[in-house]
């Protein structure tokens, strides 16, 4: 897998596993051992999608808020 921040390349297991973005999604967060950035990773594809900064949520909105308009992230 290739780090989307510093391009460091290693097998996925070398990237420190942090936690899932949401248990029912294949997106997880891992940390690059070289640049230490938090990355959103698609575990199905084994690909780093993007860097995740505070306030960003790779899983989008919370469950169950459909129809409760103002709770939806814009």
């Amino acid at each position, binding site marked *: 897998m290739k780090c989307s921040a510093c391009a460091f390349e290693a097998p996925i297991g070398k990237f*420190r596993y942090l936690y899932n973005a949401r248990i029912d999604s294949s997106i997880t967060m891992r*940390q690059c*051992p070289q640049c*230490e950035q938090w990355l959103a990773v698609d575990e199905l594809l084994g690909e780093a999608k993007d860097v995740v900064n505070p306030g960003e949520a790779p899983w989008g909105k919370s469950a169950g808020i459909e129809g409760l308009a103002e709770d939806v992230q814009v």
Partner: protein
Amino acid sequence: MSRRDKWKSARDAMMAPLGKTKGVKTRESVPEVCCGKCEMWFENAYSSEGRGTCRVLKMGSEIHSDKPTYVLEGDAGLISYFNMDASHCSYFSKMELIDTDGTECSDPLFRRALRQMKKFNE
């Protein structure tokens, strides 16, 4: 060895450093090659004074001397401390990513949020 005796040696290893006069010097010393910098070392989650367990070596192992003894089978991992000299241990494997930030919560595999470790890294 009876069940009690077997576990007594593990208990004693866990409790032994307590009650010994150590002063500042011993507490501040962090050898260049030590358990806290090894990827086989797993920080104890019950106490965070720097105790941990080896994920390879079992109780009964001895890694300090020039001729270490390695026990690889048993019920409990070897208890060691972050600043225990591991220069003679042939299982030592340097950890690349050591996390010294205690703000996020513990991952005993990566976390070494001890003041002495930070100082050492600077």
